[in-house]
């Protein structure tokens, strides 16, 4: 009568060890399958909402303008001058498929903005001298 619970205990212990072993093996197989040269690619970035995409685009363009400035000591006359040296493709507004607007105010000030911030339920959506203005 006393042997039954002990036998049951060993049975559970073996099952638990088996599950752990399968998990460990599964994890090793997973790590191995994710390797290899076909996986030598950067991780996928999370999909962005239109609003997030616009902010990301504005910052990317702004950084490209800063890099242009670092070499030329002046801001570009047009955003087209940034491609391909400073940005591989010039992004366009995701909602309207229109170009972003760009203005140079002086030798120390520039601004990149969306054509109409109301499309994003905002009053202002622009980047001025590298700083995002969004409200």
């Amino acid at each position: 009568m006393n042997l039954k619970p002990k036998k049951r205990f060993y049975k559970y212990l073996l099952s638990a060890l088996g599950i752990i072993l399968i998990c460990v093996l599964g994890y090793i197989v997973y790590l191995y399958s994710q390797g290899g040269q076909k996986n030598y690619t950067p991780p996928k970035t999370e999909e962005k909402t239109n609003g997030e995409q616009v902010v990301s685009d504005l910052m990317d363009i702004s950084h490209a303008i800063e890099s242009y400035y670092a070499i030329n000591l002046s801001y570009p006359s047009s955003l087209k001058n940034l491609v391909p040296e400073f940005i591989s493709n010039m992004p366009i507004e995701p909602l309207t498929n229109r170009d972003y607007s760009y203005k140079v105010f002086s030798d120390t000030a520039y601004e990149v903005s969306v054509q109409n911030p109301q499309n994003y339920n905002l009053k202002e959506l622009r980047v001025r001298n590298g700083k995002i203005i969004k409200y």
Partner: protein
Amino acid sequence: MVKLLSIRSYFLIILFLGEISLCAFQITNKEDLEKAIRKAIAREISCKEIKVKINFDLKSSSKINSLAVRMDGVNIGGIIADYISIQYNNPSLDYQNLKNKNKLKFLSYSGQKVNILLSVSSLQNYLNLKEKEFGKNNVNIRLKFSPPFIECFYDVPKKEIASETAEIISKFIPGDKLEGYAAFTLQAKKSELSAYSSKVILNHFLIPGSILGIFEKKFNPFEKISAINIFNFEINNIVVQSKYVLLTN
């Protein structure tokens, strides 16, 4: 008496002309001022080329609206930057120091913007120098910019890595070399650079995040950007672009 007066007026004229020439150096002669600044920078900083650009206020010709400096090939704490540009808004310069001692000194300015560009080859050279510094051989590392990541393809003999490091990843090194791929991002805070791995493949195995965390804690920050003489700045932003890594203050 007349003679004395004429000598006095002669000295006054000389003083007046001297003042005018100093003002001319300070204010109107843009090229000369740019040249003097370039010379003063070259005296303090070793680099390939220096470009200075001054824009005077349109309303008042005595006031500098902006002063921009570009230096090529400057050493910033082990990394040779391809370009460094520093822009000052409304700067006030110590002209006496500039003229007499050939030294650039800013008395005040309303804003400063620093942009540093590093190309793949400058980072590759930095790695090569580090390999030499630590006496590492046959280390093969290739970098590629894939915004927002820097991709790294590596092939390193096991004997070239520290035993402490090898111990942590020993399960993933069946042979005598470490071969694989890494995608990482960079961060800058108070001029200290840190790298964060988003994906690392070592000898066909994807390295778990917990192990990457150990390395990040162990090796970060991996470099400190040193401010250059004359120009005081702190780097707090870093962005990977298709051709350059852009560091800004």
